[in-house]
């Protein structure tokens, strides 16, 4: 289900592998899981249900080929959507299994927050995704799920996403005076500072990092097309009003 007008970059196809295995003998023990149409339909129906109840916040709903339901919402709707999924009788996603972030620097809102919920009553999982900026604060989910406490501290520490109304937002993994947000894509692998024990001053000193070998940048792009299923139509230059159409040679 896609909201009309919303661009949907995800058109998950069905995996071709595993379909050659005959169901009779080896189907039940197949190495690769068979495509489960029933679960897929149930999840899409539930996704439509959620989108119908919360049209104010839900921007997109998608079900992956591995039968994972994802609800993409506006950041204002974090608390309403999470509370709805936790308290509503048909949802009851009482468990926050995971909360993480993804950094995609090319986007306007570079960070994508991912909430993974589990319903024990109905034995299903659901994923709620929002987006965030470096500077815009996002509402904390701690009032809904206590488990979000340390996860949000980790996201603040590693990415720099500020959570408003968090009871105790401080660093959790980096060193005490550490500057920078290590999981951002523009933060180098070896970092900026390294520490060593200096015998002259008899203490640990922090110095700019010195690598034995200079940084080598590899071009990891393969010459072949990576995702043939997700080809984009080539962009033709749009004509502004008043321009003449370029003459065809």
């Amino acid at each position: 289900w896609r909201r009309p007008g919303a661009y949907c970059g995800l058109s998950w196809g069905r995996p071709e592998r595993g379909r050659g295995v005959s169901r009779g003998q080896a189907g039940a023990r197949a190495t690769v899981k068979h495509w489960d149409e029933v679960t897929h339909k149930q999840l899409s129906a539930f996704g439509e249900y959620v989108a119908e109840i919360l049209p104010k916040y839900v921007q997109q709903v998608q079900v992956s080929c591995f039968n994972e339901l994802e609800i993409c919402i506006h950041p204002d709707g974090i608390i309403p959507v999470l509370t709805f999924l936790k308290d509503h009788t048909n949802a009851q996603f009482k468990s926050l299994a995971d909360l993480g972030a993804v950094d995609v620097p090319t986007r306007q809102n570079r960070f994508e927050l991912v909430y993974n919920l589990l319903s024990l009553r109905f034995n299903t999982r659901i994923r709620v995704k929002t987006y965030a900026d470096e500077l815009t604060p996002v509402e904390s989910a701690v009032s809904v799920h206590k488990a979000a406490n340390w996860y949000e501290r980790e996201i603040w520490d590693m990415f720099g996403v500020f959570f408003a109304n968090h009871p105790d937002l401080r660093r959790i993994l980096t060193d005490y005076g550490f500057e920078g947000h290590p999981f951002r894509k523009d933060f180098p692998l070896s970092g900026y500072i390294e520490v060593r024990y200096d015998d002259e001053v008899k203490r640990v000193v922090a110095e700019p990092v010195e690598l034995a070998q200079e940084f080598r940048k590899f071009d990891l792009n393969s010459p072949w097309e990576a995702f043939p299923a997700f080809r984009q139509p080539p962009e033709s230059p749009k004509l502004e009003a008043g321009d003449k159409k370029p003459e065809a040679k």
Partner: protein
Amino acid sequence: MKEEKTKHSTFEKLTRLKLLYSKILDALELIPANAAYRKYTEQITNERLNMVKEETDLQKLEDKLQAGQLEEVILQAENELLLARKMLTWKPWEPLVEEPPANQWKWPL
């Protein structure tokens, strides 16, 4: 056979459940009639309320409801009531607050 060791009797629990469901329905009255949340929650609540009204035997009621034990059903009704009240402030049935920026949800890039 459920032994009467609990501090509340079955009758008290059923009355509490009926009270909670009627409170939920009252809270839903304040939501506009065309809202999907109101429609679906009223449907669920009325179904459960009718089942509770008909069936007085505890075990049979739990089997009919298929929602775990009676105490769990009561907890769920309390949650639904809190949710209905919060929904009144949030008003999620309104149209989308803001469209995402172009390519926000595009994957793979």
